[in-house]
């Protein structure tokens, strides 16, 4: 049987960001894939070592837009660990509130795109309409729809008034029923199920070997969630409903994200109702001593890891981060093996890839 190669990308209608896939195809089945990254490599880790510790909060928020809050959040946690800072309890809750708001919007974006790629345009529009509620929430509370600028070393840069809390609760109430409705559609629509069930399977053993994280891991039955297994901020004080699916296909990964939206709504309601009184950040800018540490958080796409080493000056000696997508690429060739060419965009989208994060 003769094989041929299909170039997908680096700029292509089915890709949200530039990355190149060289697909080897026999008839209409994928037999091999090579991934070429680096089209939006910006050298941000290098830039971070030219800026001071406080300037890097702004820089890390610009690694990526969809999980932008997790980068400064995790970076600040690393700095605080080295400095031995415990942030005020209210700040820990406010960090969670910002993060879960971003998670809902991110998961809605991915599940919406999945519907679009599967040809379910009505579902796509419905999901994106729900997402607009969260975008409006972020704009109203943080002043921006994507980059929230919520974090600072020692706490957060925003507070919530009683009126804003009421508005957030109303917004969350507004999305509950529509999210349940679209989840039902994803679960039952015959046309959507035909495009997503049994497609792009990642077996649990391979998922574990590749070290995949986030909804990709949880869609293959690996129950790892940083919020539960390595708690941070105030997650240890809240009930996190970790979602796990077993089938390891495109549908399973979508179902994990859809259920995690409701889990995030629940977390937000818990955090808003238990929000402690008190300050939201330290009243001073602490000096950061020499040291090395790691900090982790659960970004919308999975475990985000920051490694920071300082030498007592205000310039980091080394700042390194590993984004969830970086780990998940390794599993993509397994998911694509023997899939139909027509399913390739759906399978790629099902890992919710973030190329900006990968390239840095």
């Amino acid at each position: 049987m003769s094989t041929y190669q299909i170039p997908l990308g680096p700029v292509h209608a089915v890709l949200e960001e530039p990355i190149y896939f060289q697909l080897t195809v026999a008839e209409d089945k994928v037999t091999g894939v090579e991934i070429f990254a680096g089209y939006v490599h910006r050298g941000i880790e290098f830039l971070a070592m030219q800026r001071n510790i406080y300037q890097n909060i702004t820089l890390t928020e610009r690694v990526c837009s969809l999980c932008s809050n997790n980068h400064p959040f995790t970076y600040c946690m690393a700095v605080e660990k080295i400095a031995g800072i415990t942030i005020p309890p209210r700040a820990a809750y406010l960090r969670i509130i910002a993060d879960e708001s971003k998670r809902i919007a991110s998961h809605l974006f991915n599940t919406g795109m999945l519907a679009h790629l599967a040809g379910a345009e009505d579902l796509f529009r419905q999901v994106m309409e729900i997402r607009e509620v969260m975008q409006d929430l972020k704009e109203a509370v943080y002043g921006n729809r994507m980059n929230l600028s919520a974090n600072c070393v020692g706490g957060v840069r925003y507070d919530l008034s009683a009126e804003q809390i009421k508005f957030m609760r109303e917004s969350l109430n507004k999305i509950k029923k529509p999210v349940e409705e679209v989840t039902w559609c994803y679960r039952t629509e015959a046309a959507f199920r035909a495009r997503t069930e049994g497609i792009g399977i990642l077996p649990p053993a391979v998922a574990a070997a590749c070290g995949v994280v986030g909804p990709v891991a949880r869609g293959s039955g690996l129950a790892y969630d940083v919020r539960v297994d390595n708690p941070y901020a105030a997650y240890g004080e809240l009930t996190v409903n970790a979602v796990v699916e077993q089938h390891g296909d495109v549908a399973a990964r979508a179902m994990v994200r859809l259920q995690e939206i409701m889990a995030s709504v629940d977390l937000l309601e818990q955090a808003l109702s238990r929000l402690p009184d008190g300050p939201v950040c330290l009243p001073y800018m602490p000096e950061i001593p020499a040291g090395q540490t790691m900090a982790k958080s659960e970004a919308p796409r999975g475990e985000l890891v920051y490694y920071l080493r300082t030498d007592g000056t205000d310039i980091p000696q080394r700042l390194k981060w590993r984004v969830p997508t970086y780990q998940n690429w390794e599993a993509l060739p397994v998911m694509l093996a023997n899939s139909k060419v027509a399913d390739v965009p759906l399978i790629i989208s099902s890992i919710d890839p973030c190329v900006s994060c990968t390239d840095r």
Partner: protein
Amino acid sequence: MLGKELWETLNVRLAAILDGKDDEGRWETDDKGVTYGWFRLTAQKDILPVAKVVAGLGGRVMAITAAQAGHGLTQGVEIAYHFAIGVINCTFSTVLTDPQREAVSITPILRSADWHEREMQELYDVKVLDHPNPRRLFIDAGQQMADNLLVPLSTAMDDSCTTRLWERIMQAQAGSGEEKK
């Protein structure tokens, strides 16, 4: 295995490898109860038995950090391997003092190290030995642009490129118009 049992098993197996050679090795637990281990290896090849212990306990590579000498670091390139074994995190650091900058690959043992080692090879000029897929990770202009199959985004979005494209179209149109005349 639960956290404490896993930690005890890991400690016993690591002790056999480190054999008292790392006086500064330590475990620390943060204020949320999360465990992080910090260890130093005298030779980079000692990472192989560590990787086998991690793999044997179902662990994975979280990240690999290469750091250039300078800014007060020791000579050469420092490599920090960050592992996750269940809920336990640990980092093993080693310094490549050899100007050849050679490091044995742990990807044959832990597949999750694949991209990290390839990136280290590319951005920090570390020669990773025995890597099963040492192909460049990020684009290589010299190698991959040769067949005009790939167009980098910067080129695709370059104004001058776009101008050239439209200039050619306009010239072609003008040419066909002249022919009609």
